[in-house]
């Protein structure tokens, strides 16, 4: 039986993940970015004037701002902004029910495993195909509760005041070059608003994929959990393999008001030519809890540091992440916890696996502002190296401006423990299986936080990545 499971998973890989539909577009902006493109996007979307101004200001900022001078500047330098299409609209327009979704796209989702989750959760599915949402269904229950779960374009149309109040309040366009880019050309993403005291029991899910040569995806997600409410949002990505580079630069903003709770889970599995440069940030008010559960498996290069600004007393932030860097991949992921109020607590658990010549980096910040008394924070980074030329980096920063705090950071780097492998092999597993089992054990603290079907899919993906890793 030994390799059968792996083989089975692997057999349909190309079918499942390595396909590409012919490109058919209703609307596609020419490559490159200037005022004209931004004007075209905003006109096409019939946006209000303030959003147009916002986009144009962001564009100016994007053009004026140099590329970051930290991190993997070589890889960042490979991003060719002029060869990217900044807006691509899918052939198919907004859908309201599953039945109306075109067959071709359903097949795509089939291969991606979307229907499983769809069947399981009759919650809203907001699946982004190309640069715009093509299918969207909201469970009646959510509507009844007053929960807003829309793609961002619709959110802006239907709830202009809500969106205007919170949009870019957490990540201003001036924050960094990629946030500026997203602000100028954003399209799609989700808008979620949970009214006070409402608990959304089922996870809200969204699927994204890229499907055009040199196409960028710039979705923008904003989740507002009002006082005492709670919500779990799941973002999963998987993408076909392409020969030319692609840029994905999302902005995700979470606002957890007093006593609210937000969990945001991501399984990122872009194809290995995608540059995934993402800004994810949350604000947690008094007594609120924000958790980022973040898995990075795909892409050529990911830069992503989910952060929580703990601005209210007693707020809690958590980041639980794994990164898997295979040959030629660089996962530059991490977390930031900004303690700006007393009695706030946070925890970061980061696990990374590097294989072949893969490189994974943890880059983190824990900041205790003056006045944030009695804070506690704990950071734990574990890196596993599977091959002699794999690379792991740990770059944590701790800034402490207050005395009565507990700040702790620990990190470990090691290779697969020979003893463990030897033991498992002595119990009848071959080396491939033994390695897979050790790796699955290593990421178990992460997988156990995922809904079951995601955990299963993640384990399959890991098995795929590990396939033939011996020797």
């Amino acid at each position, binding site marked *: 039986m030994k390799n059968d499971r792996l083989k089975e998973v692997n057999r349909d890989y190309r079918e499942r993940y390595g396909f590409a539909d012919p490109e058919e577009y209703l609307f596609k902006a020419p490559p490159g970015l200037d005022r004209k493109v931004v004007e075209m996007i905003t006109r096409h979307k019939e946006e209000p004037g303030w959003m147009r101004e916002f986009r144009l200001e962001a564009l100016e900022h994007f053009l004026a701002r140099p590329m970051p001078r930290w991190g993997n500047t070589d890889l960042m330098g490979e991003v060719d902004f002029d060869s990217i299409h900044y807006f691509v609209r899918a052939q198919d327009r907004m859908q309201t029910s599953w039945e109306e979704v075109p067959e071709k796209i359903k097949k795509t989702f089939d291969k991606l495993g979307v229907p499983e989750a769809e069947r399981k959760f009759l919650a809203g599915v907001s699946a982004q195909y190309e640069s715009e949402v093509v299918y969207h269904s909201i469970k009646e229950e959510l509507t009844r509760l007053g929960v807003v779960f829309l793609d961002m374009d619709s959110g802006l149309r239907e709830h202009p005041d809500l969106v205007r109040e919170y949009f870019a*309040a*957490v*990540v201003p*366009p*001036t*924050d960094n070059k990629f946030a500026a880019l997203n602000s100028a050309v954003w399209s799609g993403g989700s808008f979620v608003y949970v009214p006070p005291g409402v608990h959304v029991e089922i996870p809200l899910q969204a699927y994204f994929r890229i499907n055009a040569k040199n196409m960028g995806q710039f979705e923008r997600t904003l989740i507002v959990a009002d006082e005492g409410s709670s919500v779990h949002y799941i973002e999963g990505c998987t993408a076909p393999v392409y020969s030319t580079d692609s840029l994905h630069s999302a902005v995700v903003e979470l606002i957890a008001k007093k006593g609210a709770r937000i969990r945001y889970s991501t399984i990122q599995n872009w194809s290995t030519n995608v540059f995934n440069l993402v800004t994810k*940030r949350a604000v947690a008010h008094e007594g609120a809890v924000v958790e980022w559960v973040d898995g990075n498996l795909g892409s050529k290069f990911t830069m992503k540091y989910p952060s929580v*600004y703990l601005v209210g007393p007693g707020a809690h932030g958590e980041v639980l992440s794994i990164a898997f860097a295979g040959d030629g991949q660089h996962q530059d992921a991490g977390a930031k916890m900004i303690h700006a109020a007393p009695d706030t607590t946070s925890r970061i658990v980061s696990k990374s696996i590097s294989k072949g010549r893969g490189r994974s980096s943890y880059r983190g910040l824990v900041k205790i502002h003056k*006045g944030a008394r009695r804070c506690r924070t704990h950071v734990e980074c574990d890196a596993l190296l599977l091959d002699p030329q794999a690379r792991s980096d740990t770059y944590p920063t701790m800034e402490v401006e207050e005395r009565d705090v507990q700040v702790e950071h620990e990190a470990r780097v090691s290779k697969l423990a020979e003893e463990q492998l030897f033991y498992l092999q002595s119990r009848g597993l071959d080396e491939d299986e033994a390695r897979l089992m050790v790796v699955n054990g290593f990421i178990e603290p992460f997988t156990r936080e995922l809904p079951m079907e995601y955990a299963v899919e993640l384990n399959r993906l890991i098995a795929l990545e590990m396939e033939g890793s011996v020797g």
Partner: protein
Amino acid sequence: MAEYIGAGNIEDLPVGGKRALRAGGKELLLVRVGPREVYCVENRCTHADAPLEKGELEGTRIECPRHGARFDLRTGAVLRMPAAVPLRTFPVRILEGGEVEVDLEEED
């Protein structure tokens, strides 16, 4: 105990003008927003320590030139992230001869 110290004459600072100062071991920013309206804040963004003197001014609002955090000069309050804590502010008084004085008294 107030501890006012001289910070130059108001005539030397045009409306909308900013001036960086150093006093009592602190980096300060003096901003004149109106004919008789001058504010003094710590010249250091609470987000990433960038000096604010080159920041854009709009009324009583200043924007950090580095990451775009915004503050209210009157209270130091954060108006936009990525800053999370307020700027320190220092009381200012303008004497009859136009002399501007800043109170460096410690908070806490």
